[in-house]
């Protein structure tokens, strides 16, 4: 497992965040996808959409135990930030996100941050992964809270 960016959205992640935040289009959103299996960067970075990730034997979405995808629209996302001129990078963040009481023994390995241009239609082929993050949760029935924090630094 590793934190890595998918090739398909390298160089685009910050602007995709900006587009979601500005409702361009209004149906766009970032989508958090919990995984029950995560491959390596080498195994994952060439996968160009969520359907390809799902089809890859090294990756698997966690859909049991009340784990669900989280759709983050402009409502959930923080305002598009200014560039970080101190650290010379552009950072974009996910908001605090809660999964309610995932059942025990429904653990996760990773978390995808994806871009979906049209949350009202389409398939997993239309959802483009931006980043994969280590997200190893050993569930015990309590809520799982992802703290707000940067998921991408463009340098």
């Amino acid at each position, binding site marked *: 497992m590793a934190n890595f*960016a998918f090739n398909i959205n390298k160089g685009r992640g910050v602007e995709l965040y900006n587009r979601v935040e500005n409702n361009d289009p209004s149906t766009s959103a970032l989508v958090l996808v919990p995984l029950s299996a995560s491959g390596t960067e080498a195994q994952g970075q060439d996968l160009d959409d969520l359907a390809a990730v799902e089809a890859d034997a090294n990756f698997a979405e966690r859909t049991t135990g009340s784990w669900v995808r989280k759709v983050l629209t402009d409502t959930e996302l923080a305002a598009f930030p200014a560039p970080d001129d101190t*650290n*010379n*990078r552009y950072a974009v963040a996910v908001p605090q996100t809660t999964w309610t009481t995932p059942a025990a023994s429904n653990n996760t390995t990773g978390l995808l941050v994806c871009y979906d241009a049209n949350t009202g239609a389409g398939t997993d082929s239309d959802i483009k992964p931006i980043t994969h993050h280590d997200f190893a949760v050993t569930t015990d029935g*309590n*809520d799982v809270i*992802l703290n707000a924090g940067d998921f*991408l*630094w463009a340098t």
Partner: protein
Amino acid sequence: MNEYQVYPKDGGWHWKLVEAREGEEPANVVNSGKAVDEGGPFDEWKAAVADARDHRGDVREDIYRKGENGFEKVGVLVKERGPERVAIVREDGSLYGECDSALPNGPGQPIVMNISPVKVGNGAGSVE
């Protein structure tokens, strides 16, 4: 699949969460705590238990106790999100015991996670 076991100790009830392996008896103790014996201040829990039995979503885990014939189910574990307590309820709805100790991260206490940012680019001054 982890299992909760409840057993008498020091005049009260203790529980422990053990790591179960398929086809084997539960082995490694993940966490444990003291449960309060019946006769304690259970009134509030009776309401919680009744509520839990009406809303099965509040019932989380089966409780097992090691007896002469191996592990036997004694009830279900009921967690309440507010008070940091858990109750153990028999199948008939009566209260078996109340745990005042925490589950691995405390009953009702969320698992808090962070993710690390992914750096894209090769700019000077970037920090990983």
